[in-house]
């Protein structure tokens, strides 16, 4: 065996403990990364097989040819097909069966009066397709709906809503429909298609409640007779279809559904996780680098001896690198196994917490193994590179001198470079914020700020620890003083240790500040542009929910307490070749309940051929009042609209406004997303709200909220997101914590004799433990303080840059309570990290410690 390699192997064996922290850091990072990739692939594959199986009986789908997709939507809106087309299709030779598929939004109300689902996955209703091969759902219990008002629901939805066969409840379509559950259905053997809820009704009911007018369906599902392939079937169907209607194979349709789930949910989900494993690995890099640097420093004498005995620089460096390599490979390898374990664990965990992800074997692709392995090795070797080079540079003479632990503070070069970087960061960030608002220079500024913080760490460490530790002397006496000075011993090391935590805390603070700012923005938006007294809405998130009954707004308008009740519906159309969301409403009433900013023209008489749009959209398309805008609707028809008004603020009202009359010919399933209500003069808020609530109860019981409540609930999703982010960032914090613990253990090892002396002259074990713990807390406090400052600054830059770069005005908010919690968590992490090193140090035998060389 090669000499360098032999050296590193023996040293690894001798100092296994030292590398335990490094091993764990790499292991966790790689495991998280590999777990994410395997999970993503597995979910993708199992969704794929689920859709494949669910639609295996469907050989072709007939549907509207064109889809209008608005920005931010994965699945476009298609023109419906006539149900009468079913008979035409059935007559085509080779067709065994055909059934219309009528689908719309339909949210069940549970036994407790609360809506079922709606927090992400769609809540669907449709006709129960009687041909069992064409229907992805199968009846599991009870019977099929035979009469109007009878429905089958998927078992998962029934469980969630506490509903049983025989129960009568409300289905929001969004018009409330009284339905009786007569059967429970499964989806390819599962309780449901993931978390999607489905209510199957008779075809007549479906046509009545889910479509704009009877005789329309979202599509027609077709089954081929024996010997007819899917492609052949599509070829035969195509000639009989009217213009604007197309046929695709069942496989294609399944693929589209799968892609939709992938792009809408899985990609987002995995990207999200990948970002956080990136943060964790970045944090790990710092911890690992620090460990190697300390180990090399501690081995200066040994390396010098090797050099004196004739080892070349390269051999000494190679020995150090080989050591890192062994750690990297074993830890990354173990990380891969851990990642597969995580994926398997999650697969088992999801159903247990009522989140039925589809079954299926774990999909382990080469890439999801090779990538984390490579990243782990690169991170580990990259972190060890500099210390290894330094090891090679050891002068042979050092062997003869006293062990010199690296106690060099901050060099002037470092201070200058850090300051220059910091200034550049500030300049770039301010350019992005103030001069030409854009996210790119701001992002560059953020990156530079991070680098400058890391570079300046050792410069700042001395002052910062002195300041942060100042109260410690007074509170903890000599124990505190010792802790503080120990933390100050090697500012470089303290800074490097703290950097890991700093990055973790910075990301946490960034999200906290950004989240709070978004909430403040929502709040500001609502309080600025919502001029009503109460808002009626169905809180929903993502694709779920069904909206509000279009009959509710007129019903509220009839109340004596109500001055104006205006419902905002949603339509889609292509404007200027791009899909756009339209707000369908009574524009005159809209102007009374929303602050639309400066309005040019009049919203009074839009009629059936008038449109109002925001200033930003108007400017983008060069439209002025009196000009003509061309809109293409989902039914394929194109109509010219005259721009009658241009308004300043779009926030709640949307970018385009047309009247209900103009929308009526093109409408799909009708629903309002929001109803704004203003009260008559002299009606108290409580009385008005009570009256509105009473009426709303009859229309599926949506939420009736005052302006403040509405603002708060609009921001509800942000809290949910933040919780998830915090959970994911916990990993980075754990890795930083491991880094602190590891550095501390190594540093204590250097100070063995000193610890022995302290114990000999009367330091109790408890005092020694406290001293180590406080040192750890101080290092953590330094990292936390830096992270908090950096994170808040980045948050400010991000918010301000977004504010300048987009049409929406972003508000900046610093949440003191939440940030205080971040600080406490950072300090607690420090105390926790110090626990084990402190215990180990306290166990030292006094005599042996004094006698160590």
């Amino acid at each position: 065996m090669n000499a360098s390699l032999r050296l590193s192997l023996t040293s690894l064996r001798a100092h296994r403990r030292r590398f335990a922290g490094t091993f764990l850091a790499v292991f966790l990072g790689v495991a998280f990364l590999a777990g994410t990739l395997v999970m993503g692939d597995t979910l993708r594959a199992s969704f794929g097989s689920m859709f494949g199986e669910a639609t295996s009986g469907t050989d072709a789908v007939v549907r509207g040819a064109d889809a209008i997709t608005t920005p931010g939507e994965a699945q476009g809106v298609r023109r419906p097909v006539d149900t009468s087309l079913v008979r035409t299709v059935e007559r085509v030779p080779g067709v065994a069966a055909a059934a219309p598929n009528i689908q719309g939004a339909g949210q069940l109300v549970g036994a407790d009066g609360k809506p079922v689902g709606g927090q992400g996955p769609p809540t669907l209703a449709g006709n129960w397709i009687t041909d069992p091969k064409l229907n992805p759902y199968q009846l599991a219990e009870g019977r099929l709906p035979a009469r109007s008002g009878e429905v089958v629901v998927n078992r998962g939805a029934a469980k969630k809503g506490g509903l049983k066969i025989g129960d009568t409840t409300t289905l929001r379509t969004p018009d409330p429909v009284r339905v009786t559950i007569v059967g429970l259905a499964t989806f390819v053997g599962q309780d449901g298609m993931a978390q999607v809820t489905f209510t199957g009704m008779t075809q007549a009911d479906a046509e009545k409640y889910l479509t704009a007018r009877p005789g329309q369906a979202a599509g027609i599902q077709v089954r081929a007779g024996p010997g007819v392939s899917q492609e052949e079937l599509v070829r035969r169907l195509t000639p009989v279809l009217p213009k604007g209607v197309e046929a695709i194979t069942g496989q294609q349709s399944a693929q589209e559904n799968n892609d939709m789930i992938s792009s809408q949910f899985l990609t987002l989900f995995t990207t999200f996780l990948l970002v956080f494993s990136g943060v964790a690995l970045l944090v790990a890099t710092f911890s690992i680098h620090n460990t190697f640097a300390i180990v090399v420093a501690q081995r200066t004498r040994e390396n010098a001896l090797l050099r004196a005995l004739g080892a070349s620089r390269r051999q000494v460096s190679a020995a150090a690198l080989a050591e890192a390599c062994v750690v990297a490979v074993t830890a990354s390898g173990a990380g891969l196994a851990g990642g597969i374990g995580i994926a398997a664990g999650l697969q088992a965990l999801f159903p247990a917490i009522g989140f039925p992800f589809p079954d299926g074997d774990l999909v382990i692709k080469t890439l999801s193994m090779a990538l984390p392995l490579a990243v782990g090795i690169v991170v580990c070797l990259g972190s060890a590179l500099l210390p290894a080079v330094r090891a090679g540079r050891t002068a042979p003479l050092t062997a003869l001198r006293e062990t010199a632990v690296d106690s060099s503070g901050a060099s002037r070069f470092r201070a200058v470079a850090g300051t220059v970087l910091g200034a550049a960061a500030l300049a770039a960030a301010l350019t992005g914020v103030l001069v030409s608002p854009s996210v790119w220079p701001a992002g560059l500024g953020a990156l530079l700020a991070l680098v400058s913080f890391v570079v300046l760490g050792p410069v700042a460490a001395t002052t910062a620890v002195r300041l942060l530790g100042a109260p410690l002397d007074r509170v903890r006496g000599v124990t505190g003083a010792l802790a503080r000075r120990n933390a100050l011993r090697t500012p470089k090391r303290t800074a490097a240790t703290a950097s890991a935590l700093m990055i973790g805390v910075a990301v946490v603070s960034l999200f906290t500040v950004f989240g709070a700012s978004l909430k403040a923005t929502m709040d500001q938006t609502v309080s600025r542009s919502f001029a009503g007294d109460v808002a009626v809405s169905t809180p929903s998130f993502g694709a779920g929910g069904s909206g509000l009954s279009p009959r509710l707004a007129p019903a509220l308008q009839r109340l004596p307490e109500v001055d104006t009740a205006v419902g905002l519906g949603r339509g889609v159309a292509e404007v200027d070749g791009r899909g756009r969301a339209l707000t369908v409403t009574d524009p005159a009433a809209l102007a009374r309940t929303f602050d639309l900013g400066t309005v040019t023209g009049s919203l009074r008489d839009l009629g059936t051929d008038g449109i109002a749009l925001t200033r930003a959209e108007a400017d983008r398309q060069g439209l002025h009042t009196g000009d003509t805008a061309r809109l293409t609707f989902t039914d394929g028809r194109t109509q010219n609209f005259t721009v009658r008004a241009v308004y300043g603020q779009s926030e709640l009202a949307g970018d385009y406004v047309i009247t209900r009359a103009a929308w009526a010919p093109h409408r799909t399933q009708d629903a309002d997303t929001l109803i704004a209500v203003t009260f008559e003069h002299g009606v108290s808020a409580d009385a008005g709200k009570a009256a509105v609530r009473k009426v709303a109860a009859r229309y599926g019981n949506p939420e009736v909220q005052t302006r403040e409540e509405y603002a708060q609930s609009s921001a509800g999703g942000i809290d949910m997101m933040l919780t998830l982010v915090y959970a994911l960032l916990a990993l980075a914090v754990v890795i930083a914590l491991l880094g602190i613990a590891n550095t501390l253990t190594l540093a204590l090892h250097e100070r063995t004799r000193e610890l022995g002396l302290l114990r000999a002259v009367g330091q109790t074990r408890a005092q020694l433990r406290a001293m180590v713990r406080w040192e750890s807390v101080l290092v953590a406090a330094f990292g936390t303080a830096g992270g908090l400052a950096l994170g808040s600054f980045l948050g400010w830059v991000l918010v301000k840059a977004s504010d300048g770069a987009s049409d929406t005005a972003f508000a900046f908010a610093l949440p003191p309570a939440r940030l205080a919690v971040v600080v406490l968590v950072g300090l607690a992490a420090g105390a926790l990290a110090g626990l084990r090193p402190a215990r180990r140090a306290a166990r030292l035998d006094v005599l042996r410690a004094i006698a160590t060389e």
Partner: protein
Amino acid sequence: MTTTALRTAARVVGAVKVYGGGDTAVHALDGVDVDFPAGRFTAIMGPSGSGKSTLMHCAAGLDTLTSGAAYIGDTELGALDDRRLTLLRRDRVGFVFQAFNLVPTLTVEENITLPLDLAGRWGDREWIDALVGVVGLGDRLHHRPSELSGGQQQRVAVARAFAGRPDVVFADEPTGNLDSRSGGEVLALLGRAVRQMDRTVVMVTHDPVAAAHADEVLFLADGRLVDRMASPTADKVLDRMKAFEVRS
């Protein structure tokens, strides 16, 4: 001095210390009975492996005896747990080690008051000032140990050892790392503390010149007390040591 000699600052009775077990068992102490009278400067001498350091460590509560008993004043050390032993060391015993006596992060003054600070005691300012005056480091109080010479560091260690007015100060080869001039200063300091300030010192050494500073020298060989010599001189001690080597 004769009156104080009646009082015992520390003693060991039937002290046995065995390292290892079975065939490889080593008897570092093999039944030692010795009193360290208060107000006296006692030196322990003996060849390497004679058990002199072990005797000191056990008498000072840094190590435990296999059998027998060790006392500081009237306190039996074997009955104390780690915490009480630590408090005893802090409050009633002082130490001067061969090297690495000072905490590098603390100043000279802080090092001197370290045992008091650890106990949370204020200490006797006049006493501390007097000590500082005796060791002659008044102008270095705010320096770090790394800024001092080896001799100066040992003098600080001596001041630290006496700061809490302990019952007894144990010194383990305090001059082992020093040149003869610095060593002489440190020994003179220890002697002065005993004679002028009425303190008690027990010193382990292998240097006859150092031992000559003591009031009495105890000779250890193979874990047993083999001789005592009052009013030693360097020559007498050296002769005695030579006699050892001849005999063994």
